[in-house]
């Protein structure tokens, strides 16, 4: 155990919190579990910041990928083993900070938001479990370790989505989220198996070294082998990407994300906006050298999946009326941005801009999207509804929420100088340089983004005057406001981080290049989107309906999320249940088991059929006797000599 073991405390502290609260929370910490959980996380966050400071300030250049320590957890064979370890590189350290920070915000926010819940301790236990898993995921030093924590974040997500377990819709959403991502994980698992088989290792450092150097035998065999027209490496990477796409809600595996909004809103902020859903992006980034150097074809797929997801989600987001769903689709769209940013990137130097941009966007997105969700949470807390039609004119009642929400909206819309602007510009630049088609799609999407975000903003805070029924209560206590303010500062200022200095593909710092000429078009588009939203939603009018009517078929299919859910339902219910499951069960009961029963029944039947042999007539017995004698005599004298 070496001196850097303290890094392992970052995930272990939340784990300790989980164990403590999970086992004893209900009996001993009925009301104090929130504080306890938050304290554990505070310590963890402080450590993370310290680690980041230590890491980034240590030297002038970016420190290369290093493995702080490992422990062999399960030795499969001589070469393959699961090692639990800590891997430090710029992106993992960045993620440590993001995860602990957002998680801390959510912990604090939940002190107010979840107060009085019956399962308050359980809630904090689950949050801690999630944080532990997520931290474990980002610092994984081993491909299988990442898979392990990948599954653990999946299950924490399940637990938190299904937190209101007696609500059938929550249970259904939790199941859906888990099963869809599980399906994607199947691809991930097989991808791991293929990749580990070719590379002969599961350790990231060795793996990347072997799979990127053109001389290595492992890489040669992985590229030359082919199955169904694709090389072994491409298969491996695509399948691993399938896992990432599932967790990051990329088209067509995104269907679980909107439903996942059934969970408590702070959970959505933490898991389904800031951290877990970007795990897919993180995974691709983690293996980025392999993608970029050895298999550009797979990276191309990543780019297109990201781009398509981004635009589809943006279109759907324009039509949804549940504010959390709008945010969910927006998340999906933004992750699409990150994904295709990775996809259009190359390895090394300036060509690796997309990679940096993607990570940068991940960083800023975490801030403003968490903020949006927490703000939405405050709104929902206030009006007790998720539907836009129940809202409007809330700016007077929720001033802090209003301001921070506006900041976040501006950030996501890419209006300078808010955080989103910087990261989005870099992404667009990277796309522009490498793939014009994607650039135009991205441009269109970013305009849409501004539109639907401000549609949301205006519908909540402006539009029709508030008609609140029941009691008027405050905006939520200090616990809820503090995170909003802190995240608001983040969303406003995070863009000024010299990100490229720290994070790049090959370790050489990148200069940030904001070019007024290049930025003009996207910003202008953003403004157009905002103005359009203002025209439609600032005041209660019938313009939106008219517009919807004029776009009827497009609107309808977007409203119904392009019927992808129905397609899935058809495949699972009709095909899997009715065409596979039911016949399998029937076959088992009737054919396989039937054969066993048939053996028994036919024995009985034979037994019944021959009972006449024992006729009760002594003379017949004697005839059988003599018959036996004669048969035996003939048999042994003549036949069987």
């Amino acid at each position, binding site marked *: 155990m070496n001196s850097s073991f303290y890094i392992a405390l970052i995930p272990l502290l939340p784990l300790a919190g989980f164990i403590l609260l999970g086992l004893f929370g209900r009996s001993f910490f009925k009301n104090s579990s929130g504080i306890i959980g938050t304290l554990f996380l505070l310590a963890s966050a402080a450590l993370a910041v310290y680690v980041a400071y230590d890491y980034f300030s240590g030297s002038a250049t970016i420190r290369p990928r290093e493995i702080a320590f490992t422990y062999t957890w399960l030795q499969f064979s001589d070469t393959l083993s699961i090692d639990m370890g800590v891997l430090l590189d710029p992106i993992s350290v960045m993620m440590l900070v993001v995860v602990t920070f957002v998680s801390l915000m959510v912990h604090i926010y939940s002190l107010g938001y979840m107060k009085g819940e019956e399962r308050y301790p359980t809630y904090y236990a689950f949050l801690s479990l999630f944080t532990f898993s997520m931290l474990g995921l980002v610092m994984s030093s081993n491909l299988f370790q990442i898979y392990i924590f990948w599954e653990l974040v999946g299950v924490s997500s399940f637990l938190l989505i299904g937190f209101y377990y007696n609500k059938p819709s929550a249970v259904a959403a939790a199941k859906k989220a888990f099963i869809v991502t599980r399906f994607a994980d199947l691809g991930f698992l097989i991808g791991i198996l293929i990749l580990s088989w070719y590379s002969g290792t599961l350790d990231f450092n060795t793996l990347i070294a072997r799979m990127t150097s053109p001389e290595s035998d492992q890489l040669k065999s992985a590229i030359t082998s082919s199955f169904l027209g694709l090389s072994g490496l491409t298969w491996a990477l695509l399948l691993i990407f399938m896992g990432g796409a599932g967790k990051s809600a990329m088209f067509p595996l995104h269907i679980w994300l909107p439903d996942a909004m059934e969970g408590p809103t702070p959970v959505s902020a933490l898991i389904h906006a800031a951290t877990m859903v970007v795990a897919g992006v993180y995974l691709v980034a983690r293996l980025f050298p392999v993608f970029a150097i050895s298999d550009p074809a797979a990276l191309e797929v990543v780019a297109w999946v990201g781009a398509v997801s981004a635009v589809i989600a943006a279109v759907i987001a324009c039509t949804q009326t549940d504010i959390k769903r709008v945010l969910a689709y927006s998340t999906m769209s933004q992750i699409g941005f990150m994904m295709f940013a990775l996809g259009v990137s190359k390895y090394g130097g300036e060509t690796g801009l997309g990679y940096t941009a993607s990570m940068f966007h991940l960083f800023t997105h975490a801030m403003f999207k968490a903020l949006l969700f927490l703000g939405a949470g405050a709104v929902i807390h206030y009006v007790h509804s998720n539907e836009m039609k129940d809202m409007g004119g809330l700016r007077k009642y929720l001033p802090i929420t209003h301001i921070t929400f506006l900041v976040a909206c501006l950030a996501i819309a890419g209006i300078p100088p808010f955080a989103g602007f910087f990261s989005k510009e870099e992404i667009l630049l990277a796309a522009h340089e490498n793939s014009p088609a994607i650039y135009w799609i991205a441009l269109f999407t970013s305009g849409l983004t501004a539109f639907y975000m401000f549609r949301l903003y205006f519908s909540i805070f402006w539009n029709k005057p508030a008609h609140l029924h029941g009691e008027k209560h405050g905006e939520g206590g200090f616990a809820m406001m503090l995170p909003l303010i802190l995240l608001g500062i983040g969303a406003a200022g995070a863009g000024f981080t010299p990100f490229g200095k720290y994070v790049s593909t090959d370790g050489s710092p990148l200069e940030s290049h904001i070019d007024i000429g290049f930025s003009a078009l996207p910003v202008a588009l953003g403004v157009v989107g905002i103005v359009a939203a203002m025209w439609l939603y600032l005041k209660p009018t019938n313009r939106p309906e008219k517009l919807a009517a004029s776009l009827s078929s497009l609107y309808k299919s977007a409203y119904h999320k392009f019927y992808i859910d129905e397609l899935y339902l058809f495949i699972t219910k009709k095909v899997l249940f009715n065409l596979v499951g039911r016949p399998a069960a029937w076959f088992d009961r009737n054919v396989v088991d039937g054969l066993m029963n048939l053996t*028994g029944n036919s*024995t*009985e039947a*034979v*037994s*019944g059929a*021959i*009972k006449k*042999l*024992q006729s*009760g007539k*002594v003379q*017949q*017995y*004697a005839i*059988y*006797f*003599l*018959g*036996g*004698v004669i048969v*035996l*005599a003939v048999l*042994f*004298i003549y036949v*069987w000599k």
Partner: protein
Amino acid sequence: MLNDFLILMKPELTVTVILFLLLFIKIGKGMKNETLLPLIQVLLLLNFLLGFFFNKQGVLFEGLYTSTSMIVFQKNILNLGVYLISLLCADWLRKTPHLPEFFMLMLSALLGMFFMISSGNLLMFYLSLELATIPVAAMANFDLEKKISSEAAMKMILSSAFSSGILLFGISLLYGATGTISFAELPAQLDGSPLQIMAFVFLFTAFAFKLSIVPFHLWTADVYEGSPIAVTSFLSVISKGSIAFIFISTLYKVFQPMEAIWYNMIVVLAIATMVIGNLFALRQQNIKRFLAFSSIAQVGFILVAISSNSPAGLSAVVYFVLIYVFSNLAAFGVASVISEKTGRENIDEYKGLYKTNPFLTWVLALALFSLAGVPPTAGFFGKLFLLTAGATKADYWFVTVAALNMIISLYYYLRITRAMFMDKNDQPIEKLRPDPSARLALLICTAGIILTGLLSWVYDYIVKLN
């Protein structure tokens, strides 16, 4: 000489002494059953115990009578069986008006069996076989008022007379072909000519008849069902055992030169016996009839071991018969207690027996498990050794068929277990108090069922006798 005679023929002599004692009691003043029965039980116990002492090997009357330690042991098994029957059926015996006659018949049959096992000559064999059969037919009719009892006796005497005819015809042909009826001289004369094969088949079928090998088994079930349980148990255990002993020694010693023929014959008949016995046992309702068919199937397994033509086969058979004595007598013992107290012999009426009579149920269940060959009962070892012995010939498919037959047999043994333990019954058999001596015998049987297998020296002892 006289000394030799007394010691070598000690089993026969003690039985004869008891026989005459009973005769004197009968023609003298007579005795009440209450006093006579314990006396007989004690005498039989002494008879059994005496079998362990003063044993010697030797030949008498120029080969007419032989005695080896194996033969003495076999006789002891039979003695044990008779003693157990006298205990188990105490309830029935006490009520029978002709108690001395019953035991006189039984002991004469036993005497016949002793001579049969020891016989060294076909004439001696024939005489002792008849001595072992005819009294049993009379015993079968011992429930004088019951119609089925006399029907059973009639079937038995006619069938066995017929089989005697076949046997004798075979012997006469064998005599014609070889000119000798002595076991010692026969092997040298056997050359496998058609006439000899013919004679052998006739002889063989007579054994098959007594052992209830398919298709010569048809009398068995009817006779077992109709006879009093004491007789049925005697028939199924003692008679079967003794015939198995003489059968195996005849085949191994006398007909060794014709092994190629009787091996195939046994394989064919063993399979038929196991299959038919099992198939018929499946659907029986009467417990006695059920046990009859189950014992037919058991004989099939004995044949598997006999087919091996090896000393291992002999010791496996003797071992199995010993276990079979305990298991089958325990089963018949429980059946006898229930039948005597309540008159019920139908398996369906055993439903819910466990609720009222746990002891009887456990004994019967253990006995059935032992018959099925399930550990930890001794039957497991017995049956396994039979099959192992059979496999020495490396006819694996034959052993496979035998092993598969164990499944069917387990099925019908479980049927009774199920009735006793699991099925519900509105009118279960009431709580019974078996006679103390029956209780004792059931305990002995249970101990035998469990310990004969687990105490591995028993088998070792038998092997050493060989």
